């Protein structure tokens, strides 16, 4: 577990907005090939934390290191070029383009010309099982298709690590199972994952390590089983009144908002 092997290392990162400390002294390591999940109640600062990692926001303190170099000064597109792919909590398909073109946008980072980008994008679509949707306008996709398109576009970058922000939000049970299958396949192919998730079933099925954020602070870290039965975590989710019941968090603490 030596930190030299960490692909992504976050050192005491914090973000202040005026009087609000959205992220406070969070440190985290993700090793190559790991799946790390970030959970926590609403407003815990999870997406803010992601934005600090991808460069959308600059940290007030602390350092983000990727492949053992500091990337604090790098803007988002430079971090994407280094190998950090990400999806957004609200899917952002490029609606005027079709599915293939959406993925090509990502593929162009590696391929310079249209035909190469098109072929690479097609390969990615096959990998995620969306090849038949290639000509469909991105604006006409269902929610689960949009989510998958986000993932495809990130994959087209040939990233080393993929950051997924609540990629399961709003999906029904069979769609969720479908997505987990895809993610597991991708993981088996060697991809590293850092995901924000509310759906604890997903967390249980698809995590090596779980990290809990509450009010901007990292309050617990461990395996899925450890975390999901930890009193500290239960308290954070449900409030002090429910302490000590010894029960686990209900498996479907899904967030609709």
């Amino acid at each position, binding site marked *: 577990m030596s930190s030299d092997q960490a692909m992504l290392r976050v050192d005491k990162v914090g973000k202040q907005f005026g009087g609000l400390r959205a992220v406070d002294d969070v440190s985290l390591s993700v090793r190559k090939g790991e799946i790390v999940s970030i959970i926590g109640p609403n407003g815990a600062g999870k997406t803010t934390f992601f934005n600090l990692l991808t460069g959308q926001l*600059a940290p007030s303190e602390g350092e983000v290191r990727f492949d053992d170099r500091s990337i604090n000064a790098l803007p988002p597109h430079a971090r994407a070029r280094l190998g950090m792919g990400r999806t957004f909590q609200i899917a952002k398909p490029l609606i005027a383009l079709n599915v293939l073109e959406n993925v090509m946008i990502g593929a162009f980072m590696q391929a310079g010309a249209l035909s190469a980008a098109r072929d690479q994008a097609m390969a990615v679509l096959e990998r995620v099982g969306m090849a038949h949707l290639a000509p469909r306008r991105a604006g006409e996709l269902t929610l689960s298709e949009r989510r998958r398109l986000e993932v495809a576009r990130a994959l087209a970058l040939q990233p080393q690590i993929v950051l997924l922000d609540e990629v399961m939000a709003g999906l029904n049970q069979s769609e969720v199972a479908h997505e987990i299958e895809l993610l597991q396949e991708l993981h088996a192919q060697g991809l590293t994952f850092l995901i924000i998730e509310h759906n604890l079933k997903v967390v249980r099925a698809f995590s090596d390590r779980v990290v809990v954020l509450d009010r901007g602070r990292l309050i617990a870290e461990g395996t899925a089983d450890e975390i999901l039965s930890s009193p500290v975590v239960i308290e954070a989710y449900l409030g002090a009144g429910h302490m000590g019941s010894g029960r686990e968090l209900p498996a479907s603490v899904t967030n609709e908002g």
Partner: protein
Amino acid sequence: MEQLVTVLVVGILLGGIYGLVSIGLNLIFGVVRIVNFAQGELVMFGMYGSYYASTYLHLSPYLSVFLVAPLVGVLGMLIQRLVIQPLTSEANMQIFATFGLLMFFQNLMLAVSRGEAYSVASTSSDGALAIGDLKLSTARLVTFAASTLITVGLHFFLSRTLMGKSIRAVTQDKRAARAMGINVERTFLITFGIGAALAGMAGALLTPIYSITPAVGGNFILAAFAVVVLGGLGSVWGAYIGGLIVGVVEAFAGYYIDPSLRSAVWFVIFLVVLIVRPAGLLGQVGAEEVGFREQH
């Protein structure tokens, strides 16, 4: 020294005019969050309205305000309801739409008036007040006073009345205001109406000073942009103070640098403010919300 004071006073009075013209734009800008390119034409309609009131109803410009302002206000509400509201969250199309209105209104008046310039003579047009060695045009003094009064009036309206408070709530956070039960569309409608009425009012008050041509709106809109951006969106006093600053800077630039470069002053101010401090001097509205992206 005397020159300096004269230029300063000229600038201040000019600033009063700019503040008057900008106050409506500022309100619309700050609340509805759209750039109303046609605002200058609303001022122009105010001027023409005052002219027709003077010619056919023999009303003095200052009295015609009571007739003209509500009419232009209604026009404003129509614009908001028919043109702006359908284009909510389509910023680029809003640009086309309001610029199209600018072209339409301006050239409509050109066709109607056959290109003739009008002017309205009023007792104050030629009058001047002498203070020491300075001769101050009465009309401009009246305008300055009106600008100040209107700003004060608007300030009280926004802080004391229920409608005013709704407007301020919507300015700060549209979603929260909606959640509190405020009818945001109706607030936009009323705000646009008030903003347009203020423009019409400004037009009527300015007829003793400027000659009335279809293109006159163009003069004001450009300066008004500079004023609004400098003063800061959503701030009533920002428009007033911004107007004074723009007026004074323009007067000094015109006197000491070159009269023909006066209009360039507006843009330089506008560009400098947007790049250096987009929230303006007293801006209520957050910079990113309105015009500026966080840069990396």
